[in-house]
Protein backbone atom coordinates (compact mmCIF):
# COMPACT_ATOMS: atom_id res chain seq x y z
CA UNK A 1 0.00 0.00 0.00
CA UNK A 2 1.30 3.45 -0.95
CA UNK A 3 2.35 5.80 1.84
CA UNK A 4 1.46 8.79 -0.28
CA UNK A 5 -2.07 10.25 -0.17
CA UNK A 6 -4.08 9.16 -3.16
CA UNK A 7 -5.58 11.83 -5.40
CA UNK A 8 -9.34 12.07 -5.22
CA UNK A 9 -11.35 10.25 -7.84
CA UNK A 10 -12.83 12.86 -10.11
CA UNK A 11 -16.45 13.05 -11.14
CA UNK A 12 -17.42 13.29 -14.79
CA UNK A 13 -18.06 17.02 -14.48
CA UNK A 14 -14.71 17.62 -12.80
CA UNK A 15 -12.91 15.65 -15.51
CA UNK A 16 -14.63 17.64 -18.25
CA UNK A 17 -13.73 20.92 -16.58
CA UNK A 18 -10.13 19.86 -16.09
CA UNK A 19 -9.82 18.75 -19.71
CA UNK A 20 -11.33 21.99 -20.97
CA UNK A 21 -8.91 23.95 -18.82
CA UNK A 22 -5.95 21.93 -20.05
CA UNK A 23 -6.96 22.52 -23.67
CA UNK A 24 -7.31 26.27 -23.05
CA UNK A 25 -3.91 26.34 -21.36
CA UNK A 26 -2.36 24.49 -24.31
CA UNK A 27 -3.89 26.94 -26.77
CA UNK A 28 -2.71 29.88 -24.67
CA UNK A 29 0.85 28.58 -24.56
CA UNK A 30 0.79 27.89 -28.30
CA UNK A 31 -0.44 31.42 -28.96
CA UNK A 32 2.31 32.78 -26.73
CA UNK A 33 4.99 30.90 -28.69
CA UNK A 34 3.62 32.27 -31.99
CA UNK A 35 3.40 35.79 -30.52
CA UNK A 36 7.00 35.68 -29.27
CA UNK A 37 8.18 34.42 -32.66
CA UNK A 38 6.33 37.12 -34.62
CA UNK A 39 7.42 39.87 -32.25
CA UNK A 40 11.04 38.71 -32.46
CA UNK A 41 10.93 38.85 -36.25
CA UNK A 42 9.28 42.30 -36.10
CA UNK A 43 11.93 43.58 -33.68
CA UNK A 44 14.80 42.24 -35.77
CA UNK A 45 13.31 43.54 -39.01
CA UNK A 46 15.67 43.20 -41.96
CA UNK A 47 18.46 42.03 -39.67
CA UNK A 48 16.74 38.68 -39.36
CA UNK A 49 18.58 37.56 -42.51
CA UNK A 50 21.85 39.25 -41.56
CA UNK A 51 24.00 36.51 -40.09
CA UNK A 52 27.18 34.82 -41.19
CA UNK A 53 26.70 31.33 -42.53
Amino acid at each position, binding site marked *: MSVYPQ*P*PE*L*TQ*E*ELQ*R*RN*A*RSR*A*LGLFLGALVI*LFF*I*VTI*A*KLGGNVMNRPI
Partner: protein
Amino acid sequence: MTIAAESLETSSPSFDKERPTIAFGTARDYYELLKPRVMQLVIFTALVGMLTSPEPINPILGFASLLAIAVGAGASGCLNMWYDASIDALMDRTSKRPIPAGAVKPGEALAFGMTLSIGSVLFLGLIANWQSAAFLAFTIFFYVVIYTMWLKHWTTQNIVIGGAAGAFPPMIGYMAVTGSVSLESFLYFLLIFVWTPPHFWALALVKSKEYARAGVPMLPVIAGPDATRLQILIYSIALIPVGMAPALISHAGLLYLVVATGFGVVLAYYAFDLYRKREGDEARKAAFRLFGTSILYLFALFGARLIEQLLPLLPWSLMK
Protein backbone atom coordinates in the same frame (compact mmCIF):
# COMPACT_ATOMS: atom_id res chain seq x y z
CA MET B 1 -11.84 27.88 5.81
CA THR B 2 -11.39 30.08 2.77
CA ILE B 3 -14.18 31.99 1.11
CA ALA B 4 -13.80 29.78 -1.94
CA ALA B 5 -14.16 26.60 0.05
CA GLU B 6 -17.16 27.98 1.91
CA SER B 7 -18.93 28.93 -1.26
CA LEU B 8 -18.00 25.67 -2.95
CA GLU B 9 -20.14 23.95 -0.38
CA THR B 10 -23.15 25.87 -1.50
CA SER B 11 -22.54 26.51 -5.17
CA SER B 12 -21.03 23.29 -6.41
CA PRO B 13 -23.03 20.10 -6.25
CA SER B 14 -19.94 17.93 -6.58
CA PHE B 15 -18.05 19.40 -3.64
CA ASP B 16 -17.28 16.97 -0.86
CA LYS B 17 -15.98 18.28 2.46
CA GLU B 18 -13.93 15.16 3.17
CA ARG B 19 -11.88 15.20 0.00
CA PRO B 20 -9.24 17.72 -1.04
CA THR B 21 -10.68 20.66 -2.97
CA ILE B 22 -9.72 20.71 -6.61
CA ALA B 23 -9.97 23.60 -9.02
CA PHE B 24 -13.28 23.79 -10.85
CA GLY B 25 -12.40 26.83 -12.91
CA THR B 26 -12.73 26.82 -16.67
CA ALA B 27 -10.89 29.12 -19.06
CA ARG B 28 -13.88 31.44 -18.90
CA ASP B 29 -13.53 31.80 -15.13
CA TYR B 30 -9.91 32.84 -15.51
CA TYR B 31 -10.90 35.26 -18.26
CA GLU B 32 -13.52 36.76 -15.93
CA LEU B 33 -10.80 37.28 -13.32
CA LEU B 34 -9.22 39.79 -15.70
CA LYS B 35 -12.29 42.10 -15.59
CA PRO B 36 -12.79 42.04 -19.36
CA ARG B 37 -15.02 45.13 -19.47
CA VAL B 38 -12.37 47.21 -17.75
CA MET B 39 -9.82 45.73 -20.15
CA GLN B 40 -11.88 46.94 -23.13
CA LEU B 41 -11.65 50.49 -21.81
CA VAL B 42 -7.92 50.12 -21.20
CA ILE B 43 -7.30 48.78 -24.72
CA PHE B 44 -9.34 51.55 -26.27
CA THR B 45 -7.75 54.43 -24.35
CA ALA B 46 -4.20 53.04 -24.61
CA LEU B 47 -4.70 52.65 -28.38
CA VAL B 48 -5.70 56.30 -28.66
CA GLY B 49 -2.64 57.24 -26.59
CA MET B 50 -0.45 55.24 -29.00
CA LEU B 51 -1.98 56.66 -32.15
CA THR B 52 -1.64 60.27 -31.01
CA SER B 53 2.14 59.87 -30.91
CA PRO B 54 4.01 61.64 -33.72
CA GLU B 55 6.31 58.66 -34.24
CA PRO B 56 5.44 55.79 -36.58
CA ILE B 57 4.46 52.48 -34.96
CA ASN B 58 5.25 49.03 -36.24
CA PRO B 59 1.74 47.50 -36.31
CA ILE B 60 2.92 44.17 -34.88
CA LEU B 61 4.86 45.76 -32.04
CA GLY B 62 2.01 48.20 -31.47
CA PHE B 63 -0.47 45.35 -31.21
CA ALA B 64 1.84 43.40 -28.89
CA SER B 65 2.37 46.48 -26.69
CA LEU B 66 -1.36 47.00 -26.48
CA LEU B 67 -1.77 43.35 -25.54
CA ALA B 68 0.83 43.71 -22.77
CA ILE B 69 -0.91 46.81 -21.39
CA ALA B 70 -4.30 45.05 -21.51
CA VAL B 71 -2.95 41.94 -19.78
CA GLY B 72 -1.24 44.10 -17.14
CA ALA B 73 -4.57 45.83 -16.48
CA GLY B 74 -6.32 42.44 -16.37
CA ALA B 75 -3.72 41.13 -13.93
CA SER B 76 -4.35 44.04 -11.57
CA GLY B 77 -8.09 43.28 -11.81
CA CYS B 78 -7.34 39.65 -10.93
CA LEU B 79 -5.27 40.67 -7.88
CA ASN B 80 -8.06 43.05 -6.87
CA MET B 81 -10.54 40.14 -6.97
CA TRP B 82 -8.14 37.98 -4.99
CA TYR B 83 -7.76 40.56 -2.23
CA ASP B 84 -11.42 41.57 -2.13
CA ALA B 85 -12.95 38.08 -2.41
CA SER B 86 -14.39 38.29 1.10
CA ILE B 87 -16.26 41.55 0.45
CA ASP B 88 -17.20 40.50 -3.10
CA ALA B 89 -19.05 37.57 -1.54
CA LEU B 90 -21.22 40.00 0.45
CA MET B 91 -22.41 42.04 -2.53
CA ASP B 92 -24.95 40.88 -5.13
CA ARG B 93 -23.09 42.67 -7.93
CA THR B 94 -19.85 40.81 -7.25
CA SER B 95 -20.91 37.59 -5.53
CA LYS B 96 -20.85 35.66 -8.82
CA ARG B 97 -17.21 36.50 -9.50
CA PRO B 98 -15.04 33.38 -9.89
CA ILE B 99 -13.49 33.39 -6.39
CA PRO B 100 -16.63 33.95 -4.26
CA ALA B 101 -18.53 31.61 -6.60
CA GLY B 102 -15.97 28.90 -5.81
CA ALA B 103 -14.76 28.36 -9.37
CA VAL B 104 -11.21 29.56 -8.69
CA LYS B 105 -9.33 29.20 -5.42
CA PRO B 106 -7.82 32.40 -3.93
CA GLY B 107 -4.30 31.00 -4.16
CA GLU B 108 -4.77 30.20 -7.84
CA ALA B 109 -6.03 33.72 -8.52
CA LEU B 110 -3.04 35.20 -6.70
CA ALA B 111 -0.61 33.07 -8.71
CA PHE B 112 -2.46 33.86 -11.95
CA GLY B 113 -2.47 37.61 -11.25
CA MET B 114 1.16 37.77 -10.18
CA THR B 115 2.33 35.71 -13.19
CA LEU B 116 0.44 37.92 -15.62
CA SER B 117 1.62 41.11 -13.87
CA ILE B 118 5.29 40.19 -14.05
CA GLY B 119 4.92 38.68 -17.53
CA SER B 120 3.15 41.70 -19.01
CA VAL B 121 5.66 44.18 -17.54
CA LEU B 122 8.66 42.18 -18.81
CA PHE B 123 7.04 41.68 -22.21
CA LEU B 124 6.29 45.40 -22.61
CA GLY B 125 9.84 46.26 -21.52
CA LEU B 126 11.35 43.89 -24.06
CA ILE B 127 9.21 44.85 -27.05
CA ALA B 128 8.62 48.58 -26.42
CA ASN B 129 10.78 50.29 -23.79
CA TRP B 130 11.50 50.02 -20.09
CA GLN B 131 9.98 53.42 -19.29
CA SER B 132 6.52 52.24 -20.31
CA ALA B 133 7.11 48.90 -18.57
CA ALA B 134 7.95 50.72 -15.33
CA PHE B 135 4.83 52.85 -15.76
CA LEU B 136 2.72 49.71 -16.25
CA ALA B 137 4.29 48.15 -13.13
CA PHE B 138 3.52 51.32 -11.17
CA THR B 139 -0.08 51.28 -12.43
CA ILE B 140 -0.54 47.67 -11.28
CA PHE B 141 1.02 48.55 -7.91
CA PHE B 142 -1.18 51.64 -7.60
CA TYR B 143 -4.38 49.73 -8.35
CA VAL B 144 -3.63 46.70 -6.19
CA VAL B 145 -1.77 48.14 -3.22
CA ILE B 146 -2.73 51.85 -3.04
CA TYR B 147 -6.35 51.48 -4.16
CA THR B 148 -7.46 47.93 -3.35
CA MET B 149 -5.54 47.28 -0.14
CA TRP B 150 -5.56 50.80 1.28
CA LEU B 151 -7.81 53.54 -0.14
CA LYS B 152 -10.86 51.39 -0.87
CA HIS B 153 -11.28 50.38 2.77
CA TRP B 154 -10.17 53.67 4.28
CA THR B 155 -11.62 56.79 2.67
CA THR B 156 -14.67 58.09 0.82
CA GLN B 157 -12.24 59.46 -1.74
CA ASN B 158 -11.19 55.90 -2.61
CA ILE B 159 -12.34 55.91 -6.22
CA VAL B 160 -11.29 59.54 -6.76
CA ILE B 161 -7.62 58.85 -6.03
CA GLY B 162 -7.79 55.21 -7.12
CA GLY B 163 -9.26 56.36 -10.42
CA ALA B 164 -5.76 57.41 -11.43
CA ALA B 165 -4.91 53.74 -12.06
CA GLY B 166 -7.67 53.50 -14.68
CA ALA B 167 -6.60 56.83 -16.18
CA PHE B 168 -2.95 55.95 -16.83
CA PRO B 169 -3.37 53.74 -19.97
CA PRO B 170 -3.38 56.58 -22.57
CA MET B 171 -0.07 57.79 -21.10
CA ILE B 172 1.34 54.25 -21.04
CA GLY B 173 0.25 53.76 -24.66
CA TYR B 174 1.95 56.99 -25.73
CA MET B 175 5.04 56.12 -23.72
CA ALA B 176 5.24 52.65 -25.28
CA VAL B 177 5.77 54.35 -28.65
CA THR B 178 7.86 57.39 -27.71
CA GLY B 179 9.44 56.64 -24.32
CA SER B 180 7.95 59.84 -22.87
CA VAL B 181 4.58 61.49 -22.18
CA SER B 182 2.88 64.33 -24.03
CA LEU B 183 0.50 67.08 -23.00
CA GLU B 184 -2.29 65.39 -24.97
CA SER B 185 -1.79 62.01 -23.29
CA PHE B 186 -1.76 63.79 -19.91
CA LEU B 187 -5.04 65.51 -20.81
CA TYR B 188 -6.58 62.09 -21.52
CA PHE B 189 -5.35 60.95 -18.12
CA LEU B 190 -7.05 64.00 -16.60
CA LEU B 191 -10.24 63.30 -18.57
CA ILE B 192 -10.56 59.72 -17.24
CA PHE B 193 -9.52 60.86 -13.76
CA VAL B 194 -12.33 63.45 -13.59
CA TRP B 195 -14.78 61.09 -15.32
CA THR B 196 -14.32 58.25 -12.80
CA PRO B 197 -16.11 59.77 -9.74
CA PRO B 198 -19.48 60.57 -11.41
CA HIS B 199 -19.33 57.25 -13.26
CA PHE B 200 -18.66 55.17 -10.15
CA TRP B 201 -20.76 57.15 -7.68
CA ALA B 202 -23.83 56.85 -9.93
CA LEU B 203 -23.57 53.09 -9.47
CA ALA B 204 -22.63 53.38 -5.80
CA LEU B 205 -25.80 55.42 -5.16
CA VAL B 206 -27.93 52.50 -6.28
CA LYS B 207 -25.76 49.89 -4.56
CA SER B 208 -25.06 51.84 -1.36
CA LYS B 209 -26.73 49.25 0.90
CA GLU B 210 -24.49 46.53 -0.50
CA TYR B 211 -21.39 48.67 0.05
CA ALA B 212 -22.54 49.41 3.61
CA ARG B 213 -23.03 45.69 4.26
CA ALA B 214 -19.53 44.98 2.95
CA GLY B 215 -18.06 47.81 5.06
CA VAL B 216 -16.71 49.75 2.09
CA PRO B 217 -16.75 53.52 2.85
CA MET B 218 -18.18 54.69 -0.44
CA LEU B 219 -19.30 58.31 -0.52
CA PRO B 220 -23.08 57.57 -0.52
CA VAL B 221 -22.60 55.32 2.53
CA ILE B 222 -20.66 57.85 4.60
CA ALA B 223 -21.75 61.28 3.32
CA GLY B 224 -25.23 60.27 2.21
CA PRO B 225 -26.98 60.27 -1.19
CA ASP B 226 -27.63 64.02 -1.37
CA ALA B 227 -23.99 64.97 -0.82
CA THR B 228 -23.03 62.35 -3.42
CA ARG B 229 -25.48 63.82 -5.94
CA LEU B 230 -23.92 67.24 -5.46
CA GLN B 231 -20.41 65.84 -5.93
CA ILE B 232 -21.54 64.02 -9.08
CA LEU B 233 -22.97 67.25 -10.46
CA ILE B 234 -19.77 69.23 -9.71
CA TYR B 235 -17.52 66.60 -11.33
CA SER B 236 -19.83 66.31 -14.35
CA ILE B 237 -19.78 70.08 -14.95
CA ALA B 238 -15.99 70.12 -14.51
CA LEU B 239 -15.78 67.33 -17.06
CA ILE B 240 -17.06 69.60 -19.87
CA PRO B 241 -13.95 71.83 -20.12
CA VAL B 242 -11.63 68.94 -19.20
CA GLY B 243 -13.14 66.90 -22.05
CA MET B 244 -12.73 69.79 -24.49
CA ALA B 245 -9.14 70.55 -23.44
CA PRO B 246 -7.39 68.12 -25.84
CA ALA B 247 -8.91 70.07 -28.74
CA LEU B 248 -8.47 73.53 -27.24
CA ILE B 249 -4.88 73.31 -26.00
CA SER B 250 -3.52 70.23 -27.77
CA HIS B 251 -3.80 68.33 -31.06
CA ALA B 252 -7.34 66.89 -31.06
CA GLY B 253 -9.49 68.13 -33.95
CA LEU B 254 -12.92 69.58 -34.66
CA LEU B 255 -14.73 66.22 -34.62
CA TYR B 256 -13.38 65.51 -31.17
CA LEU B 257 -14.31 69.00 -29.97
CA VAL B 258 -17.91 68.67 -31.20
CA VAL B 259 -18.33 65.21 -29.65
CA ALA B 260 -16.67 66.26 -26.36
CA THR B 261 -18.85 69.36 -26.07
CA GLY B 262 -22.09 67.59 -27.02
CA PHE B 263 -21.61 64.54 -24.82
CA GLY B 264 -20.22 66.69 -22.00
CA VAL B 265 -23.39 68.78 -21.94
CA VAL B 266 -25.60 65.65 -22.10
CA LEU B 267 -23.70 64.05 -19.21
CA ALA B 268 -23.98 67.22 -17.11
CA TYR B 269 -27.71 67.35 -17.89
CA TYR B 270 -28.20 63.77 -16.66
CA ALA B 271 -26.13 64.60 -13.56
CA PHE B 272 -28.46 67.54 -12.92
CA ASP B 273 -31.44 65.24 -13.47
CA LEU B 274 -29.99 62.87 -10.85
CA TYR B 275 -29.45 65.81 -8.53
CA ARG B 276 -33.15 66.75 -8.78
CA LYS B 277 -34.65 63.25 -8.54
CA ARG B 278 -33.90 62.02 -5.04
CA GLU B 279 -36.64 59.55 -4.19
CA GLY B 280 -37.97 56.22 -5.41
CA ASP B 281 -37.79 54.58 -8.79
CA GLU B 282 -37.19 57.85 -10.64
CA ALA B 283 -33.99 58.44 -8.69
CA ARG B 284 -32.82 54.89 -9.36
CA LYS B 285 -33.51 55.23 -13.09
CA ALA B 286 -31.69 58.57 -13.19
CA ALA B 287 -28.63 56.98 -11.56
CA PHE B 288 -28.57 54.11 -14.05
CA ARG B 289 -29.08 56.55 -16.93
CA LEU B 290 -26.09 58.59 -15.81
CA PHE B 291 -24.00 55.45 -15.33
CA GLY B 292 -24.82 54.20 -18.85
CA THR B 293 -24.30 57.63 -20.41
CA SER B 294 -20.92 57.99 -18.71
CA ILE B 295 -19.70 54.81 -20.39
CA LEU B 296 -21.01 56.04 -23.74
CA TYR B 297 -19.35 59.41 -23.10
CA LEU B 298 -15.89 57.97 -22.75
CA PHE B 299 -16.21 55.65 -25.74
CA ALA B 300 -17.60 58.52 -27.86
CA LEU B 301 -14.74 60.88 -27.04
CA PHE B 302 -11.97 58.35 -27.52
CA GLY B 303 -13.80 56.97 -30.58
CA ALA B 304 -13.89 60.45 -32.14
CA ARG B 305 -10.16 60.91 -31.49
CA LEU B 306 -9.46 57.46 -32.92
CA ILE B 307 -11.39 58.32 -36.11
CA GLU B 308 -9.43 61.56 -36.43
CA GLN B 309 -6.15 59.67 -36.22
CA LEU B 310 -7.20 56.79 -38.49
CA LEU B 311 -8.88 58.79 -41.28
CA PRO B 312 -5.61 60.04 -42.78
CA LEU B 313 -4.36 56.45 -42.94
CA LEU B 314 -7.23 55.22 -45.13
CA PRO B 315 -6.37 54.41 -48.77
CA TRP B 316 -8.43 57.24 -50.32
CA SER B 317 -6.79 59.72 -47.94
CA LEU B 318 -3.34 58.55 -48.99
CA MET B 319 -4.23 59.00 -52.69
CA LYS B 320 -4.73 62.76 -52.27
